[in-house]
């Protein structure tokens, strides 16, 4: 009997301990600090870490700058960046912990799949978010959600229009079949592509992200290859395709190509083909807002992690800051104590009411009331065919 009693006692003890942890962990809320808390969930570790780290760094940089310049009429911003490892099942935990830490406004998630989860959760609590880079169309289904990047479907149609105008007979498409960004652009692109253009398609998946021998073999006859993928696999494809794909061919990508010329170790000058893209940010810029941002970012974090994700995140923080400022000028009050839901309503009014922002990724950026961004996509020729 004694043994059983001891056991019950022990189990109760551990139960109390667990309960104790629940209570104890609840006490780390930021109280009394004069801050507006911005939440962010992104892949800070794992396969997609290169995007998450860039967003986190750039957002932190923007927050630090705003705070150094006196904040929002004396109220500082505070960024909480949590790690979701590009895994949607980790988002609920991140979201809840950020809500507990007083998140009032958010940058959503960095990548599309987790962001869909984030969108559903933030709708429940009516928390405003402006995502720098989660580009799936469905991310902004709800009215509290806005994008800084172009939505995938729109990019696909714009790219199709562009290609239809080139008068080609046959094009190659290289995309990643298990990535919603790539798949999303691909679907809209195919839908918008003129039926007179023949296509040769090659795909890769998460399980094979480095060796593209077979895919290059499939695409080597094409003189124009559309690649709605991110720059890391793209740079690898180009490196491996040297000498196989015709030297005067064109690689055409979307905003995922941004940063390709600064990808570490990638020797873009050695690629004979032409590389161009349709994007909102030019990471080669040396002047204007983008140039300024690039210099500052490189100084602080090194150019290794610089890409359009970061540029977009930097803009997101400033766009939110700007909208808050504009709202205050319109007579609204925003303090460190304003609830997330109230801030959401205030910001929604601004974003739907013609608020415009100029930054790294475009001038006079506006938002449609369905959350999509309105800005001009610029066709950049990253490099031309080598003479």
């Amino acid at each position, binding site marked *: 009997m004694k043994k059983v009693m001891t056991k019950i006692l022990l189990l109760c003890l551990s139960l109390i301990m667990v309960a104790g942890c629940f209570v104890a962990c609840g006490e780390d809320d930021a109280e009394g600090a004069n801050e507006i808390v911005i939440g962010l969930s992104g892949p*800070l*570790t*794992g*396969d997609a*870490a*290169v995007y*998450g*780290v860039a967003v986190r760094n750039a957002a932190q940089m923007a927050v630090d700058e705003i705070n150094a310049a006196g904040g929002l009429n004396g109220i500082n911003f505070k960024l909480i960046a949590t790690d979701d490892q590009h895994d949607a099942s980790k988002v609920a935990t991140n979201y809840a912990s950020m809500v507990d830490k007083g998140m009032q406004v958010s940058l959503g998630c960095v990548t599309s799949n987790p962001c869909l989860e984030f969108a559903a959760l933030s709708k429940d609590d009516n928390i405003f978010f402006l995502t720098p880079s989660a580009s799936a169309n469905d991310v902004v289904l709800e009215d509290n959600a806005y994008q800084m990047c172009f939505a995938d479907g729109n990019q696909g149609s714009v790219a199709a229009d562009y290609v239809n105008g080139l008068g080609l007979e046959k094009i190659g498409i290289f995309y990643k*079949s*298990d990535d919603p960004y790539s798949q999303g652009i691909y679907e809209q692109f195919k839908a918008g592509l003129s039926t007179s253009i023949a296509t040769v*398609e*090659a*795909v*890769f*998946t*998460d*399980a*094979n*992200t*480095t*060796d*593209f*021998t*077979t*895919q290059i*073999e*499939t695409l080597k006859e094409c003189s124009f290859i559309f690649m709605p993928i991110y720059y*890391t696999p793209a*740079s*690898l494809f180009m*490196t*491996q395709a*040297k*000498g*196989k794909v015709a030297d005067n061919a064109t690689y055409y990508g979307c905003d995922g190509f941004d940063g390709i010329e600064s*990808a*570490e*170790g*990638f*020797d873009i000058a050695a690629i004979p083909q032409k590389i161009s893209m349709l994007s909102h940010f030019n990471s080669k810029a040396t002047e204007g807002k983008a140039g300024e941002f690039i210099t500052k970012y490189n100084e602080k974090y090194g150019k*290794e*992690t610089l890409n359009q994700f970061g540029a977009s995140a930097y803009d997101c923080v400033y766009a939110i800051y700007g909208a808050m400022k504009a709202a205050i000028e319109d007579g609204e009050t925003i303090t460190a104590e304003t609830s997330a839901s109230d801030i959401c309503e205030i910001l929604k009014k601004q974003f739907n009411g013609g608020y415009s922002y100029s930054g790294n990724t475009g001038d006079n950026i506006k938002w449609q009331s369905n959350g999509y961004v309105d800005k001009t996509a610029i066709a950049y020729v990253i490099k031309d065919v080598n003479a």
Partner: protein
Amino acid sequence: MDFLVTLINGLSSGGTYAIIALGYTMVYGIAKMLNFAHGDIIMVGGYAMYVTLMAMGHPVIAVCAAAVFCMILGIVIEKVAYKPLRGASPLAVLITAIGVSFLLQSLAQIIFGSSPKMPLKLQISGAVTIGAMRIDYSTILTLAVTVIIMVALSVFVKYSKTGRAMVAVSEDRDAALLMGINTNRIITITFAIGSVLAAVAGYLMLCKAPSLSNTLGSMPGIKAFTAAVIGGIGSIPGAMVGGLLLGVVECISYSIPALAPFTDAVEFSILIIVLLVKPSGILGKMRREKV
């Protein structure tokens, strides 16, 4: 002709799988454990090459340095993480191996950051043209290295004293111990060889596709494990056959547009089909169980 090129490319990527699978199979045969951290040794080898390349600048030195580094790492891991568990449940060892895998991956990210490195100096570009076929130098190199390793390993196991001791340990560890074989030493040597093979595989992967991140080895590791089982785990020629088969199937599947997105499913289905027909793998030995 296109099919022939696909076939050769398949054999080449299969060669890489085969070399990784050899590491799995040898460790499994001798230590009776699934070394889940084997794939990550490839990744460490890749980073070792990258670092020496930065310091010394020559690919050959880099590969040698990586091989030595991986060998030492393999031995250290075996001594620190696996040896204390000798005699414990195989599942416990499996979990430690998984722990080691996480550890190596996160250390690599802490040290080298999150963005992939491109050690372009390791890349071998260019190709030979035979008729209408173009075959990459890297493909030829991979095939050659695979064959050399295969032959060398077979000779080593069959004719050297240590190699024969390895066979003895894999057949029956206790009996081998009774015959005066230092089983601990043999296990350490096996890990050392397996790790060197991983470094070589790492080089073969990087000479085709120079991209290095901390998850470089995870998926090839799993695929190679699958290959080892297809060929019959514990069997050296089996690892070879399994690896090549898997590589060829993968390349053929990628070259058929309708099938391409399902490539992973196709590869793993091959495994299930082979095992249903021959439960011990293509070249695996069926051990009769005794009561």
